[in-house]
């Protein structure tokens, strides 16, 4: 009887939580790459990578982040915001043709990737102000 009871508990938990091994988390995504990029990525009409990265850094500081890493050659910045919670973002900046820079941000909140559209929109709204440029959607 005891075994059956345990079995049921485990079975129930697996059914309801989904059968995911914790190692699968390494390559797990909830959405297609195209779908994710559509809200994580915007293009700006500038060819200046350094200035774009400096604007990204200033924006993150305005939003209450402390930086973790920055690299001009790779065009990336990582920062963490602590405000009763822990929010970590990575922003990459790379050229798109000769006239645009492509800015992409991804975020992790506690133990999950952030999928909230407003979250990303808010970031680009703040970045637009720092860049004095409009963020274009990328098809």
């Amino acid at each position: 009887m005891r075994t059956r009871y345990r079995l049921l508990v485990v079975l129930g938990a697996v059914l309801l939580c989904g059968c995911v091994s914790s190692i699968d988390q390494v390559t797990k995504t909830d959405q297609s790459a195209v779908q994710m990029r559509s809200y994580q990525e915007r293009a700006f009409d500038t060819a200046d990578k350094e200035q774009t990265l400096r604007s990204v850094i200033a924006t993150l500081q305005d939003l209450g982040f402390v930086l973790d890493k920055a690299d001009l050659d790779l065009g990336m910045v990582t920062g963490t915001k602590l405000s009763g919670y822990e929010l970590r973002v990575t922003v990459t900046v790379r050229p798109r043709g000769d006239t645009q820079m492509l800015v992409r941000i991804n975020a992790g909140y506690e133990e999950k990737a952030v999928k909230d559209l407003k979250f990303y929109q808010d970031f680009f709204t703040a970045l637009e102000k720092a860049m004095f440029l409009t963020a274009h959607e990328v098809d």
Partner: protein
Amino acid sequence: MRAPRATWHGLISAALIGLGCLFVAGCQTPPENAMELSPDSLKLRQLQTRRVEGIDEKALLAASVGVLQDLGFNIDETETQLGVIVASKKRSAIDTADIISSSLETLAIDLALSLVFGDHYSSDGEISIDVTQKIRISIVTRPALDSSGQPRKDAQVIRVTIQRLVWDDEGTLVHAESIEDPKVYQKFFDRLSKSIFLELQAI
């Protein structure tokens, strides 16, 4: 037919675990305004920013590293080309004033409850004490702009942001916060001016 009680027990437990999973998973989205500029952001920016004249960006970064070393920070990351320094230190978070006030609070509660429930009432008297903290700081410099909007070589703008994580005596994370106390930044910049002075003398 025999209704096995354990089966029901199992089903209920499984359902509860499942609900728990859903609940935890459902709550893991950042607060609505996490990426919005707060009304305080301008004030904070002023608090955390200074303009430094008569120094180039590299020398200012070097002076900043000097201050961080004076304050016992370890440098975690630097990117000179973007004017970025990241540093951290682990320190004690024991605050004697805090311990005394929370002990007094517990005593007062015990006393009040004793009056209500009789003389023998005593809570377990557990006081959680903040013991360790990790302080993280990022320093970002950029050239100040001249009247025509061009970056200047001999004037910089520097912005410092500080945050900390605090753990209690059981190793539980109790605070994760940005430091917004003006005094902290004022002290930091006072130290920085001295370090800049030394840096400029060395050149």
